[in-house]
């Protein structure tokens, strides 16, 4: 009896809360939709001309924000876009952190009611598309998207990367403008102090790092230099590996149509030997495995390190940072090194052509409409609006070249990019304009960046896709191999395992089943070629 009474009490509480919940959401939905509905009615008769869509619609979007992003259709940057397309964008609040973002993306898919347009990494969109969550776009592109069609016809590489293995296209790509990403950053003033020239070969590199170590380039009278440091763990040592003909940037490479595993390549042995020598002599940061951004920065601000391998804009970032402690600092970027074996210098460190993609929900009411506005994003006019904002306000045309106005470039925090976000700039799927990037970096940096571009070699495609069975094998075997490989790479470099053991290591990888993995990669790569 007593128990029953208690149970009733508890059920009562739950019931009440559930009813409350019902009321709450219902009320909110109404509140959210009414003003929009009114607005569209008011706008319709006035603005039927020159717009992409005849009728105003509201498109819900789930896309990744910057913390500074201001989401509103009324802002200086966004208003012309919203007016031209006749779309009222309704942004669902998304986390800015990558992992959080993906977690919420997956949950939203699980929840069932999808926003019309969703941004995500490509493989997630393909996977969702193959499961019917996102609309196949082939027909929509054919019928409604002349501008986008032109882009993919002119760039077969883009078409290949956005097609899924089943022949469908499930997303609109954000197409980037530059390929350069990481380069070797050196203290030019240290080189000058010691009367040295920028290294061109691995041997010169060794000599210069040695000079950094021994000849006190920071001039404090102490032998405290750690010539080369990084915040990217083993990937930060890439410039010492690539001259030998292999790259940490890709797990696999293609040789005569055959997919091969990078980390058992014989060329890697020489590369590791060289790197291990640098490490042993203290030319590479002894703590590179554990360094984080903070330690990496402190190595520079304390002026113990004079070289690193990092993304190109960091060159100026570091220069400003160190400049606070030592105004004479001058950093430069190096092109990839020539190795002893005669392989032409190259790098595979690069930005992906396609950043993220946007998929249309297969349940959306506005598929054709969205295809039309997306097509405008890719058109020359849309590209200007997306990259540069509003003519006369955020940019002006000088000699047919768009230029940002002082409103953007002379922002009081000296942060043009962040200012753009605050003005409502959003990174939808469109083509990045190289001039957008140039406006953000100094001429010196743009020049250094462009000096690397000719050295960039295509890397193993990232847009491969796998079937479920294949994924299972990769998950079990390849994960294990990767863990073992990572451990051994570091061991070889820090010298806790002699290079002579390299052949044993290769045998071990064979034993762990690299053949099965290669077969899957080969199959997937062949499918990719046929797209």
């Amino acid at each position, binding site marked *: 009896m007593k128990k029953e009474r208690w149970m009733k009490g508890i059920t009562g509480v739950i019931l009440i809360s559930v009813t409350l919940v019902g009321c*709450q959401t219902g009320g909110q939905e109404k509140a959210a939709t009414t003003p929009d509905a009114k607005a569209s009615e008011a706008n319709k008769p006035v603005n039927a001309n020159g717009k992409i869509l005849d009728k105003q619609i509201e498109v819900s979007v789930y896309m990744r924000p910057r*913390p500074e992003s201001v989401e509103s259709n009324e802002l200086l940057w966004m208003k012309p876009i919203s007016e031209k397309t006749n779309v009222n964008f309704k942004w669902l*609040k998304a986390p800015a952190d990558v992992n959080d973002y993906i977690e919420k993306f997956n*949950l939203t898919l699980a929840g069932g009611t999808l926003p019309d347009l969703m941004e995500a990494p490509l493989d997630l969109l393909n996977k969702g598309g193959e499961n019917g969550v996102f609309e196949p776009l082939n027909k929509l592109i054919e019928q409604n998207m002349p501008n986008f069609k032109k882009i993919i016809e002119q760039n077969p590489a883009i078409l290949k990367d956005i097609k899924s293995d089943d022949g469908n296209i499930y997303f609109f790509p954000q197409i980037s403008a530059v390929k350069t990403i990481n380069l070797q950053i050196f203290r030019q003033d240290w080189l000058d102090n010691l009367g040295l020239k920028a290294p061109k070969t691995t041997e010169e590199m060794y000599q210069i790092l040695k000079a950094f170590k021994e000849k006190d380039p920071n001039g404090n009278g102490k032998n405290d230099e750690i010539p080369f440091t990084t915040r990217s763990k083993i990937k930060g040592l890439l410039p010492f590996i690539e001259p030998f003909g292999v790259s940490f940037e890709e797990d696999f490479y293609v040789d005569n149509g055959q997919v091969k595993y990078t980390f058992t390549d014989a060329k890697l042995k020489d590369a590791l030997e060289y790197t291990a020598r640098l490490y042993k002599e203290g030319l590479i940061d002894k703590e590179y495995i554990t360094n984080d951004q903070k330690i990496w920065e402190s190595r520079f601000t304390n002026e113990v390190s004079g070289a690193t391998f990092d993304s190109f804009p960091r060159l100026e970032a570091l220069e400003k940072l160190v400049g606070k402690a030592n105004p004479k600092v001058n950093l430069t970027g190096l092109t990839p090194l020539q190795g002893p074996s005669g392989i032409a210098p190259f790098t595979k460190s690069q930005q992906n052509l396609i950043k993220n993609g946007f998929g249309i929900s297969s349940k959306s009411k506005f598929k054709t409409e969205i295809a039309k506005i997306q097509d405008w994003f890719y058109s020359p006019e849309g590209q200007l609006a997306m990259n540069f904002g509003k003519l006369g306000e955020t940019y002006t045309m000088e000699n047919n070249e768009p230029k940002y106005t002082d409103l953007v470039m002379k922002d009081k925090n000296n942060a043009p990019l962040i200012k753009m976000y605050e003005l409502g700039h959003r990174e939808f799927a469109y083509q990045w304009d190289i001039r957008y990037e140039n406006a953000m970096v100094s001429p010196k940096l743009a020049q250094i960046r462009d000096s690397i571009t000719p050295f960039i070699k295509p890397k193993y495609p990232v847009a491969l896709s796998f079937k479920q069975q294949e994924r299972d094998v990769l998950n079990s075997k390849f994960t294990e191999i990767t863990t073992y490989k990572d451990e051994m790479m570091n061991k070889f470099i820090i010298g806790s395992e002699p290079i002579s053991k390299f052949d044993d290591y290769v045998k071990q990888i064979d034993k762990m089943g690299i053949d099965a993995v290669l077969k899957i990669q080969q199959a997937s790569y062949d499918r990719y070629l046929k797209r």
Partner: protein
Amino acid sequence: MVFRRMTLGGLAFSCINALVLGLIVVMTLYPFLYVVSASLSEQLYIQQGRIGIIPMGFQLEAYKRVLEFPMLGRSYLNTILYTALGTAISLVLTVCAAYPMSRRDLPGRKLMTSIVLIPMLFGGGLIPTFLVVNALGMRDSIWAIVIPAAVTSFYVFIQRTFFEQIPLELEDAAKIDGCSMVQTLFKIILPLALPSLVTIGLFYAVNEWNSFFPAMIYLNDEKLFPVQILLRAIVIQNQTDQVLVDVFDDKNLLSESIKYSTLVVATLPILIVYPFIQKYFVQGSMMGSIKG
């Protein structure tokens, strides 16, 4: 004066005691002081690792930046609302579960206990939980924040144990004086259990205050965001994978200081609550309730 009466051994013990406790105080206090001092220091010194508990290159710009964030006021109010409402709901439900379970004459008490015990050992998993919340229509409302996490089994057990310590004779006395069961709960039991209620309430409040994950996954409307989401966004501002954001600007020159001041802004209010509640922790609960 006290020392004079002590033996040598006692004195030594007191000294060691003070030393060890003092050391623990230093160890627990230092991180706090470090964060405060770093939030007031210039980025350069933080990066060089030269900050101790005294700020170097004093600046208040970082706080200004954090407090300038447009949604800060609104999300602070949200957090306070969620904390207050969430704690109230949690306490009511916890008492409702713990009190009957503490009565030894309750039929099926063991079964109830094991049902409450299960979620302590196994979780429902993220996606099923999400689906339930979604199906109940709580998404994008305050209820998604305060209801799913309302009861923590562990606290139910703590509260139950506390109720069990209250002598049954007290209840009998109340019954003889004509109290109904509900009256007994409100007039006798709850006042006696105040210290434990306050303690558990504080646990709930701190959890609610610090929680950001439910808000992240259930809320789509910025107007409902608690302050933790906003501050998390500020903290991760600099850890982006977008290359171009790497371009340095003056705002980023403060990023480390901003991170620390964000921490201070986010934790200070709930930290301030502690001293006011502390008296309940030390207060004896059963003093003089039963005699003989």
